[in-house]
């Protein structure tokens, strides 16, 4: 099987099919990431489209300095970050009329996925990015640190501060 880098090189020489192959290879990961954030297939697919569209536009300039998966995940994170900030305002303006009370509700906690991600959106940027990567992708701290260009310790500290603030905001036990 051809590696990601080989496919990218093919794409950079003008072979469109190589890009399609990359999409097929990484679609499930990208889609699952956004599905965890949105809880909605349509919204997750739209966001995945955004990611691959950005990738198509910028892949021609990819320099192989970093792992392709890190590069792709950085696009994921930026897209999620933009989505959460936009969604936070939309929810604040009460554009979403139906409160999310579904099978997700549980007697142990009284908050929904929407409330959780709204609370994430209110975190300081660094904490927000670390929390997104940890909870939506279950990434190890080492990878998070690599993507954000910080030390592993900083990533851990940011995560714990972020989770603490989320607990306070959601009124969790």
């Amino acid at each position, binding site marked *: 099987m051809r590696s990601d880098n080989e496919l990218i090189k093919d794409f950079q020489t003008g072979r469109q099919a190589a890009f399609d192959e990359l*999409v097929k290879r990484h*679609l499930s990961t990208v889609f699952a990431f956004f599905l965890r954030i949105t809880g909605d297939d349509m919204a997750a*697919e739209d966001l995945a489209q955004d990611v691959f569209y950005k990738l198509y536009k910028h892949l021609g300039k990819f320099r192989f300095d970093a792992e392709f998966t890190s590069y792709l995940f950085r696009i994921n994170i930026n897209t999620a970050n933009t989505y959460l900030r936009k969604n936070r305002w939309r929810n604040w303006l009460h554009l979403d009329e139906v409160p999310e009370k579904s099978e997700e509700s549980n007697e142990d906690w009284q908050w929904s996925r929407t409330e959780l991600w709204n609370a994430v959106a209110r975190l300081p940027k660094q904490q927000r990015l670390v929390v997104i990567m940890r909870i939506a992708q279950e990434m190890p701290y080492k990878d998070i640190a690599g993507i954000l260009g910080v030390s592993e310790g900083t990533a851990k500290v940011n995560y714990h501060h972020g989770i603490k603030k989320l607990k306070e905001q959601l009124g969790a036990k």
Partner: protein
Amino acid sequence: MDFEDQIKSIIRAGESIPDQDQFISRLHQRRRQEILNRHRLFSGVSALALVVMVMLLAISQLNNQPGYPPEKEYYSEMTEPDSAQIAEFLDEAALYLLDQSDDIWSTLEFLTEIQYEPVTNLLEDKL
């Protein structure tokens, strides 16, 4: 269940994945649409720039080349005629009337009536 487990539980998603071929097809469709939109925008902006340029050129041409020559070419400045000029004009008019009239006496009578000085002086001298 601790807080982090609660979070993981609430965001747990199903294993559904969109149809890969449809997804790629929509992606390329969107890409083509964006290129088309960009071309349209570029054409629109270019057309607008052209219209503005032609407009500016037309306005500057109108400013540089007036459609009508200056009024001084048509009209000379009005100056108040002095008494000598008026007298000269009246003499010429009187001579013209006398030349052109069929009845010189009625013309003289008219000049007397309007108190044309040379004629009235002549009459007074005779009297």
